[in-house]
């Protein structure tokens, strides 16, 4: 579980913008982000629990076992959602859209995979639930990190002209192409 927590924490840090935010008009998106993060974290928690049962034979005794470490994705989801909503409502919207799309795709793919490769009736459900969590996480991450469409005219505008705050953050990296 600790390794999963580490991965989730890193994912949280990766999507959380580091730039300062305006003090006004960000509370509502932050609350929405926290709510969305709660739901997403809940899906991720259930997905992790089902995955551990399926692959590691680590079963839970009942719903009450979702508390504690198993519920860490909920906390991370709330924090991440609130942070994204607070700093960048547009990215939150993209993250939600990406997460929902990814979850839908994951459910379908997981159900089919569980049915084809599984050997018991619960496997299609397990596949769908695991797929939902994976799809949601991947979709939300892609949605949050996807470059925003920017007004080319404003690209060169100094931050000072915008009241000292950047409009967006561009993360650049190189991919070697042969």
């Amino acid at each position, binding site marked *: 579980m600790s390794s999963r927590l580490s991965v989730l924490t890193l994912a949280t840090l990766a999507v959380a913008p580091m730039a300062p935010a305006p003090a006004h008009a960000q509370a509502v998106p932050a609350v929405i982000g926290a709510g969305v993060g709660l739901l997403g974290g809940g899906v991720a928690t259930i997905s992790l629990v089902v995955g551990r049962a399926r692959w590691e034979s680590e079963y839970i*005794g009942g719903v009450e076992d979702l508390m504690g470490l198993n519920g860490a994705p909920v906390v991370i989801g709330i924090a991440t959602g609130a942070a994204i909503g607070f700093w960048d409502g547009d990215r939150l919207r993209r993250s939600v859209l990406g997460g929902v799309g990814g979850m839908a795709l994951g459910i379908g793919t997981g159900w089919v995979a569980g049915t084809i490769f599984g050997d*018991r009736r619960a496997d299609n459900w397990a596949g769908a639930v695991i797929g939902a969590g994976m799809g949601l996480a991947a979709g939300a991450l892609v949605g949050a990190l996807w470059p925003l469409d920017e007004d080319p005219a404003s690209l060169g505008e100094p931050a000072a002209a915008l009241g000292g705050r950047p409009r967006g953050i561009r993360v650049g990296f190189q991919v070697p192409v042969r």
Partner: protein
Amino acid sequence: MRRVALGPELGVALLLAGCGSSLPPLPASTPLPEPDPDEVERVVFLIGDTGNGIPAQLPVFSALGRDIEHWAARLDTGAVTLLVLGDLIYPDGMHPHDDPEFSRDSIILGQQIELVTGPAAMAREARAYFLAGNHDYMQETDEEGRLRLSYTQTFIERARLRDGAQAWLLPGLHEPGPTVVDMGERLRLVLLDTAWWLLVGEQQEKNRMLIRLDAALATAGDRDVIVAAHHPYTSAGPHGGYVSLWKMLGIRYVLARSGAILQDLNSEQYRELRLAIEQIFERRGRPLLFAGGHEHSLQVIRHYAPGAPRWTAVSGSGSKISAVGRTEGMLFGSGQMGYMSVHFRRDGHVDLFATAVPEAYNVCPPEPTTLRECTAAGLAAAEVVYSVRLK
């Protein structure tokens, strides 16, 4: 390659989940007449999940004690048997002697043992066999769980040695079973510790258990066989996957359908056990009845498949209740507190009766006067709610 399709059970589950209380009706049944003691050779009582309260406050225990006395007084010595189908003490089994919880635990278990210490029960040597449930192992897979069960076994042994109560924990600690108890020429009880299988058992021990189960059925001869365990063969209750979609925001439903809960009947471990015993049943002959608790309800299910027992009885509403859905072959299902009795008639027939108390008398208040009145009213209101001829 398997076809991608929604199975019929999933369809039923979704239907139940969506419709809430509108369950499909169960087949109509004709109640059997009250059995005449002269025509009955032997009675086996079934009650499970008994450890969720002080038995003296639960009229279902009074009703069961009354019935045990009734039949013990009218039948031959050793003809009445009580099977207590696990989860004897909630939530964590029996605590050690020096734990503050021990006194509560000892009252709960002690009053269960008292079911076979009435005058007639003692005179006619009515026996109680207690089976372990997952809560008696504290739901733990480690040594602590086995320790809790050892305290339970010690308590029952002391009651037997000190008070003469004919009570045993079977299979005993470190003996997953099956324990075979032959009752005359007509009946063989095969007692399994399914909680051990799910929580403790290692593969080699599991294999040995299956070999012993095979032998127990192979040597049964013409006897009717009742296989008893804490976990039922099948169920239309929450552990069988029949959970309302709307309850707990659907979380319990999704976990149940995905097989993530160890104590659900679709967990990989339980399915492995069920598959193995189905192969044995198919090879050695189908037992008359598979009796289990675990679900807090009363259910009677008839099976026709070659690897299934002929009947499943779920009798796990000794101190808790939960909802019941529907499953294939189901003839009776009720979320009432109650117990069952299996009557072996001298003419060879075997009848099953389910007795329940109305919800108003599930638990009585502890004040002595109110408790007496409530218990008397509950006792008077207890009635047979279903009966069927098993054979």
